[in-house]
């Protein structure tokens, strides 16, 4: 067992060497590749450049992520609205809990064929599907977060007659924020998956569609290029969100168990 700590420079080097080595390796090994399935890295990058220059890369990005952010925003609003309501009404939560548990484990992807084949390949059905996938982790984690707020906090708010709107804003939402953040983090990731699936199933534009079309036309370099773009963006969003979460939750850093009845940092994953 070697749990040494390394200085900042050594740390960066250690984190960087393997990814860089692998990319270089990929480049070298594939350079003279004749295989259809594993084109040279340069060819892939060329296809990427071509896609960008043609112009459709940007419109695909705008389409895909327009849908994504619209759905994410909608799922945050709906998820928090219901999450707060259910969290603040414990009896409602009790009654609904088995249904929520069941819905949580239902893979939303099963609705893709039904929704797209019935409602078409436009933006609306896709936004709806992404929303369906993203709303559950947010809703469920919000409920958990509200439940975890110490009852004394609620009692104090009642003793000082804090009006409902202010209570929801500054006591419930603020107190549940750490758990809500976990839920949003899951939604960010799940959203990308659903985005890709909804576009690959039926679409006229978008990243997923680009990858699908290229694949169907056996244009491997373009397919790889599209896949890599999706992967990189998915990773970038997750990384950015993690940074945002870190800054937002500065106050939980040192807080022991004063706030919560029990430590709840588990993500309630869909």
């Amino acid at each position, binding site marked *: 067992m070697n749990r040494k700590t390394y200085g900042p420079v050594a740390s960066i080097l250690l984190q960087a060497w393997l990814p860089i080595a692998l990319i270089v390796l990929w480049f070298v090994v594939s350079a003279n590749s004749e295989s259809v399935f594993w084109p040279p890295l340069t060819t892939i990058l060329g296809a990427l450049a071509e896609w960008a220059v043609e112009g459709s890369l940007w419109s695909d990005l705008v389409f895909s992520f327009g849908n994504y952010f619209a759905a994410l925003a909608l799922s945050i609003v709906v998820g928090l609205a219901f999450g707060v309501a259910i969290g603040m009404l414990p009896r409602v939560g009790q009654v609904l809990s088995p249904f929520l548990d069941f819905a949580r484990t239902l893979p939303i992807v099963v609705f893709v064929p039904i929704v797209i084949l019935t409602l078409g390949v436009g933006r609306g059905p896709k936004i709806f599907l992404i929303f369906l996938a993203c709303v559950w982790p947010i809703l469920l984690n919000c409920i958990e977060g509200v439940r975890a707020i110490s009852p004394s906090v609620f009692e104090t708010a009642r003793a000082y*007659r804090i009006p409902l709107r*202010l209570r929801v804003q500054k006591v419930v939402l603020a107190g549940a924020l750490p758990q809500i953040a976990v839920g949003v983090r899951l939604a960010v990731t799940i959203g990308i998956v659903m985005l890709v699936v909804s576009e690959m199933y039926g679409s006229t534009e978008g990243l997923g569609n680009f990858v699908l079309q290229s694949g169907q036309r056996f244009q491997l370099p373009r397919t790889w290029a599209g896949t890599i773009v999706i992967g990189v963006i998915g990773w970038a969003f997750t990384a950015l969100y993690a940074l945002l979460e870190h800054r937002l939750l500065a106050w939980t850093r040192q807080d022991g168990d004063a706030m919560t009845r029990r430590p709840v940092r588990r993500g309630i994953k869909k």
Partner: protein
Amino acid sequence: MTREKLTTEVALSAVHVAKSFGAGSAAVTVIDNLHLDIRTGDVTCLVGPSGVGKTTLLRLLAGLSSPTRGTVSMGGTEVTGPVDQIAVVFQDYRGSLMPWMKVLQNVAFPLEGRGVARAERLRRAAEALDIVGLGDSAGKYPWQLSGGMQQRVAIARALAYESPILLMDEPFGSLDAQTRSELEDLVLGLRRELGITIVVVTHDIDEAVYLGDRVVVFGGRPSQIVDDVPVPLGRDRDQLTTKADPTFIELRSRVLVEIQRYGLKTVAS
């Protein structure tokens, strides 16, 4: 600070109150047919063994819970829920302060609830923090403060609320002796400077006699008032001389004897 001044001689009144929990055969009657008047401008201390129902009574006075029978009234009006004129300091200071707000925001929060403008409420909050001696800690988070300081913040919050009545439920129970002494003096100072009517629930007899103008002793199950002791020790008290005063010692023994005698045995009324 513009604090509302109570005009009546009796600030709070509990008339024939009873409180039971549970239903049917499992019902537990904690308080039965109790009558208590809290006089304006006094520090009234409620003492008794653990579980006797002091906290229950305090919550009834505060409007946080409703009596099974009887009424609680303030200046003639019945108390059916929390009111602006009553501020509460709870025992669990860690739970009652909002950890995601800084100290100043915590203290100002009830004012925000009342709709006071931002600049004004922050000013009053800062003033309240000064009174409790935490003017420097306004920008900190509660977890950065010690237990005693957190309880001071809770007191400051009650002060900023500018209510004429302050109810405290075992406020210093979880603090060490030194901190407890400081905060006891703080409470006396509040009564002296601001003329607030204060009710303190405590299981510490010394504290009850030291703080109170009147000590009400509870005992028995269901809880009854077994003694009502006036404390003629004057308004200027301090930890050393007051606690050595023979009157203090005598009163304290009296209360102790009563608590031991009545304990939680059923009391014939």
